[in-house]
């Protein structure tokens, strides 16, 4: 749970974990998210790093910062986040995966039909 990979900045990885909580509805719209302090303590990371992760989601209007109360899942957050994550996937990751499939000589249609994959 506390391990990070070495290829992405930590704040990006924390942002993704918070995003995952919203996408899989561990935290539903209008509900409170874990405080900066508790995430920092749980993951042994600098509080500023956690703040930065939250700021990235506040900028997307996915998380709402309520003064003195902490962070909350904004209304319509899941839809917005899903839209944003789809866009980034299609723009950043898909072209790479696609060229890898091609480079490995795999057949996309066959892959999709294969059960359990």
């Amino acid at each position, binding site marked *: 749970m506390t391990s990070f990979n070495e290829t992405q900045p*930590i704040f990006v990885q924390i942002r993704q974990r918070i995003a995952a909580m919203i996408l899989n509805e561990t935290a539903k719209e209008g509900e409170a998210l874990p405080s900066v302090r508790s995430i920092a*303590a749980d993951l*042994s990371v*600098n509080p500023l790093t956690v703040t930065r992760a939250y700021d990235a989601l506040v900028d997307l209007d996915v998380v709402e910062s309520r003064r003195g109360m902490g962070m909350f899942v904004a209304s319509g957050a899941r839809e917005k986040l899903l839209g944003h994550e789809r866009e980034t996937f299609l723009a950043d990751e898909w072209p790479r995966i696609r060229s890898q499939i091609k480079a490995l000589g795999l057949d996309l249609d066959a892959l999709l039909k294969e059960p359990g994959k």
Partner: protein
Amino acid sequence: MTNPIVSVHGLKKRFGPNEILHGLDFEIPVGRIYGLIGHNGAGKTTTLNAMLGLTSYEGSVQVLGEDPYKHRARLMKNVAFISDVASLPRFLKVRELFAMLSDIHPNFSAERAASFLEGTDVKPGALIANLSKGMLAQLHLAVVMAIDARLLVLDEPTLGLDITYRKRFYRRLLEDYMTADRTLLITTHQVDEIEFMLSDIIFIKDGLVVLHSTMDDVGNRYAQLSVSPDRAEAGMALKPVFAETRFGQTVMVFDGADRGALEVLGAVTTPTLSDLFVALMSRETGVK
């Protein structure tokens, strides 16, 4: 821009004929978590001692705008410290220690200290002499966190503690102590455990600062490349600051290299602090 909480300029320290610190310069802004990292004997503890007014020095040191050697007592109201050789009075009970500290330290709260120990095995009636090493560390942390200080200096605070105690120690610190107007300065050899807690690092080698950087800049500036033997030469041509062969892969650390150019050769990551430490500390002999 607020004033730095610590500013050190041209700090030198001599023990007899031996100069230990050769002119250190650095400033520490408020609200940061600093890691001071170096080999044994590099001068970390001497640097901390100069900042805490525990030793004389040449050059200029200001902590909270004061000269620590001249105004140590005044400074200690706002600075708390755990030394690697710290000892608490063994003949006292925990409760008696808190009472004594309340008498001598204006910013110490016995109530807060006691609350930090709730849920631990350290009981108020326990004699300090009878506490285990881990319990002593908990007690010590409770004492320093109960001081409403602006700067907390921890010199190898988790030395000799097992992993669960070390984790608990740092968790406590982040959960109950760290705020935007407090500053933390830590030295430790277990760098990997606190790597992501730190906002900034200072590497000291043989009495000199070899790196002073925010962790963000470390990520931007340094890159680690793992290449297979046939690509090693191409990698070396890009002038790594350090190279080492592990399991048939050559691992190289680059300073300021273009990541795109490296990615062509192999897997590129940001070096961990311990990898970077090894790379920079063995720089003269590392690349042949």
